[in-house]
């Protein structure tokens, strides 16, 4: 069987992820993995998944979204709600599978609903509106109370007392308590592979080419008969859905789920955007690598305490300047050609 260049490239991406997984497992079995590092594996993987999702919006569709933490939040809350409600009645595996499906579908629905108004806007207007939607989702979920008792289901923005037998599901700013910890590194890696499979195949399909043509020139693609609204929506909804799945992994990794800025604020969306841009806009494999390295980096620098984020910020600025400044690119190319000439001799 002869592989095309594209499918070879895709296979390499899966290979890197699987190799990384195997290395971690070996380290774990031989006892070389500290418990601190072990705790970072699942977060690292779900941030990689969101980075892949965001790259679909930013790199492939070419629209800047600053609200992906909101979709994570939707996925996390809807799935946690389901898991907490069915904790006693359903067995672990099936429950988590259903939770993943529910989180993904809910995020997709919200992606569709938010996409209707948002995708009409352009450029930075679109960015600020996605940021606004993300913040609204976070604020509402941090203020809502949901519980059931003998009188039925109650939902309110003010705290209330349950009558008789019942349970508080969402407790305002306290969020959802007692989500079963179903997430594991293996499941997270499997979901990362599935997301990569979906996005990479989308990019190399007829639909993907249509989406990229909209990015490159909307008017030209419209004039050759591409349904701009449909394809923009397709990319945005898939991106939101994958971010929702990552949210499910997030909420089933900690027992307490709260809609705070630390986890779901706009700064999280920005952090993920940083992963995407440093990994390469439109480069799916780059997103995974950048997200993994940049998530681990500040944790590795923990010994430097207060200096670590300072160093991180300087590294970020310097990398951007070296990578993107036209002058730096010019200098780099000059040296590359010089080196090439020398080796050619």
């Amino acid at each position, binding site marked *: 069987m002869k592989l095309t260049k594209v499918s070879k490239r895709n296979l390499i991406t899966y290979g890197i992820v699987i190799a990384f997984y195997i290395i971690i497992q070996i380290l774990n079995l031989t006892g070389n993995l500290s418990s601190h590092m072990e705790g970072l594996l699942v977060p690292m993987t779900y941030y990689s998944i969101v980075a892949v999702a965001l790259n679909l919006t930013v790199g492939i569709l070419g629209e800047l979204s600053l609200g992906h933490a909101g979709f994570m939040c939707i996925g996390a809350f809807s799935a946690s709600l389901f898991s907490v409600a069915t904790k006693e009645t359903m067995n672990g595996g099936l429950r988590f599978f259903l939770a993943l499906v529910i989180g993904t579908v809910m995020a997709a629905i919200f992606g569709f609903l938010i996409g209707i108004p948002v995708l009409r806007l352009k450029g930075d207007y679109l960015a600020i509106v996605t940021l606004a939607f993300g913040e609204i989702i976070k604020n509402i979920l941090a203020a809502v109370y949901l519980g059931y008792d003998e009188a039925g289901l109650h939902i309110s923005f003010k705290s209330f007392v349950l009558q008789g037998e019942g349970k508080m599901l969402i407790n305002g700013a306290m969020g959802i308590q007692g989500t079963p910890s179903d997430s594991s590194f293996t499941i997270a890696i499997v979901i990362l592979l599935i997301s990569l499979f979906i996005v990479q195949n989308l990019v190399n399909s007829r639909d993907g080419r249509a989406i990229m043509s909209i990015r490159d020139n909307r008017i030209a693609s419209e004039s050759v008969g591409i349904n701009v609204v449909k394809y923009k929506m397709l990319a945005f909804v898939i991106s939101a859905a994958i971010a929702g799945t990552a949210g499910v992994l997030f909420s089933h990794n900690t027992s307490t789920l709260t809609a705070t800025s630390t986890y779901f604020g706009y700064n999280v969306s920005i952090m993920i955007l940083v992963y995407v841009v440093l990994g390469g806009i439109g480069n799916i494999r780059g997103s995974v690598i950048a997200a993994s390295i940049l998530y681990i980096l500040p944790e590795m620098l923990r010994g430097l305490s207060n200096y670590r984020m300072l160093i991180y910020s300087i590294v970020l600025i310097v990398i951007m*300047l070296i990578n993107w400044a036209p002058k*730096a690119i010019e200098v780099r190319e000059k040296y590359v050609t010089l080196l090439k000439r020398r080796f050619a001799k």
Partner: protein
Amino acid sequence: MNFLTYLINGISLGSIYAIIALGYTMVYGIAKMLNFAHGDVIMIGGYLIYTASSTYGFNPLVSILISVVGCTILGMLTEKVAYKPLRNAASNLAVLITAIGVSYFLQNIALLIFGANPKSFSSVVTWEGLSLAGGELKIQGVTIVTILTSVVILIALQLFINKTKSGQAMLAVSEDKGAATLMGINVNKTISLTFAIGSGLAAIAGALLCSAYPTLTPYTGAMPGIKAFVAAVLGGIGSIPGAMIGGLLLGVVEILSKRYISTQLADAIVFAILIIILLVKPTGLLGKNIQEKV
């Protein structure tokens, strides 16, 4: 009377947003970049005043002056070091990410120097304020000073842009950089001046913000920065009166919804208003609608 008090407080908060939004909108209009570090300049301005007045015992006006000068230099410096090299980069996202880097940098510098504990900021306005309608309607001195300052700034800025050569140069650069260069305008200098003015305004906003809400942490500037950006977009980005209207609207809505609807949902309501307005008028209240040509 109660409602009137809240309304006035809202206008005061709105004036602060408006001053920040003016800086945002000018920088956006000219450099076409979302300056995510703008909010953090406010925070740095606040710390400069805090240090000048609490540690060195300068009087409030001198401290504000120090802060304005400090922030102006900071603004020009960041533009020169971090944004200028990326001006002709292949993607707009490059400079956006650098701005995020600068924002992290400023927050963490402040964290290193001043620590994470909130500093209690003593108001730069010592005037007690007015007591109207037989003591039923009390307006704080800070509130009045804030509103007056923003009006003065708006008028001064309008005059500067419409009547002076540098102001006209700014308009020209924001319209068309290439054509402005051909007309003999020094684009680099103009952009640098814009950053200087924007950052100076941020310092004033910092003084007023910290006087009205006297806790200062390294993250003080982040949320007002984002809200001011929302205000700038709401009013039509690039438009100076638009930024003013957007800021005032946002401040009033925020204070009133905090009082009459819900404290936690106030931010959600503010953002919802942005979405509704952009749906009706995609370029903001006073934004120009530019048709795309093929």
